[in-house]
């Protein structure tokens, strides 16, 4: 009896009785599939070592299959390369599909860790890791490694639009390239602070945080937005 109980408890903790990874991914995907397009307003905060920028009001537009545009219609916002990956449906866009690797649950959060390996050898995405909140059927965190644009990480907080798999807050981390201009071009004023605060010229991690204020889902987005 003791042995059976021990075996049962092992099975429970190791996720044998948990929802299979494929089903979990399918349920997440079906939520995202409900969104054909959206337009959303948001507040964008950019944190890159060599950039000082104010918080900006932006418009985010998405249209299936893979069009995403962040626009600051009135001011200036530095949009990171690969921001297209901010939309979770990008993970499942590969027509050849992907193989799943279930890594079990995160001991701290309980989120399921699933690796997605694209079957197409030419796929831009090399590997994605998603952290799925199985109870809510939502991706909470992801890490995507691409061929051209390095690795992106996403952290999502959900609210009113969770039923569509759309986050209220997205934190997008990306690799920022080195930045350096010759002093002979900029004619800098050396006020003594540049050496302390500015970029070392080496690549580093950048971070963009978008707090969405409202979504207009499946109301149509003109193609002109993405040009």
């Amino acid at each position, binding site marked *: 009896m003791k042995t059976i109980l021990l075996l049962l408890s092992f099975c429970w903790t190791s996720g044998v009785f948990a929802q299979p990874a494929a089903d979990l991914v399918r349920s997440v995907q079906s939520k995202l599939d409900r969104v054909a397009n959206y337009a959303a307003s948001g507040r964008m*905060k*950019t*944190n*890159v*070592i*060599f*950039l*000082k*920028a*104010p*918080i900006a009001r932006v418009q985010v537009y998405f249209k299936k299959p893979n069009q995403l*545009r962040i*626009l*600051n*219609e*009135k*001011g*200036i*916002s*530095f*949009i*990171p*390369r690969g*921001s297209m990956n901010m939309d979770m449906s990008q993970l499942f866009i590969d027509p050849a599909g992907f193989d799943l690797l279930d890594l079990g649950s995160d001991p701290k959060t309980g989120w399921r860790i699933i690796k997605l390996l694209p079957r197409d050898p030419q796929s831009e995405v090399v590997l994605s890791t998603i952290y799925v909140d199985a109870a809510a059927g939502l991706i909470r965190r992801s890490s995507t490694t691409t061929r051209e644009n390095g690795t992106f990480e996403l952290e999502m907080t959900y609210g009113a639009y969770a039923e569509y798999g759309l986050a209220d807050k997205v934190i997008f981390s*990306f*690799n*920022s*390239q080195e*930045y*350096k*201009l*010759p*002093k*002979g*071009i*900029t*004619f*800098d*004023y*050396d*006020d*003594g*602070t*540049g050496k302390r*605060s*500015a*970029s070392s*010229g080496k690549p580093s991690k*950048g971070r963009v945080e978008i707090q969405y204020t409202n979504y207009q889902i499946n109301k149509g987005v003109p193609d002109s937005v993405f040009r």
Partner: protein
Amino acid sequence: MLALLWIELNKIYRRPRTYIAFGAMAAIVWLIQLALYFDGQAYVDLLLSNLSGSFEFSDLFKSHLLNGYLICFVILNTLLIQMPLLVALVAGDAIAGEAAQGTLRFQLTRPITRAQLIGVKFAAAVVYVISLLLWLAILALLGSVLLFGINDLVVLRSTGIEQMQMDDVFWRYLAAFCFAAVALTTVAALSLLLSVLADNPIGPIISTMSVVIVFTILSEMNIPLYDTTVKPWLFTTHMVAWKGFFYVQADAEGTTIRGSIENLPAVFRSLGILLGYIVLFLGAAIYIFRRKDILT
């Protein structure tokens, strides 16, 4: 004294040579504006080439970036290096020009001290500097804003980028122009000092130009030891401190703090050093002029 100042201003503004500076400035500003109006995208692409690995830039971004505030910054960057030369044209002529024309001795027969004469010449040069800067403000700031509109200002430094919201920029230009007035007044004081030493205006004008050019090159050089000993005391190092008004503070997450200046004490220190140079040059000019034999 006011009557004397009025006479000096009349002398300056009635000379056709004075307007060479105004004409040259207008030509340079209009050429830059014209070039950026028709080929601004190429300039923006060049500016952003270093950033294209990290960010993607839409046409909307580029059109917003190329706004009147940025154009004015580009013009100031170009012209505030050349403007000292235009100031030298007038200030270098103040005493040496009178000596060359043979009117200096006659001037000193009036019931004024030599120090007062230098003071009046200097005041007239300061008025000229201010009028040049007002002209520049009209052309570069007002003209660019009318031509290109306004938006956020992005300033590229050698190791970082500063972005200010459009409603946080205008006061910075006002402060920058006021600072530039002090910086150019330093050149006027230097030119006046050299003018006292000569009997022909060509010498002080060319000497001022040479000093400004050589010192500007020295200010841009990075040599160990020299960087911390000589460079901080060159007046040309501090003449570019107007840019300090466009360097903003940011919080721990890199968000610009509205209305802030990254290092205001450094800007004030630069202002203090320039004022010190003005007092030094003017004092030396008065000292030498009081002891000088006026032969013409």
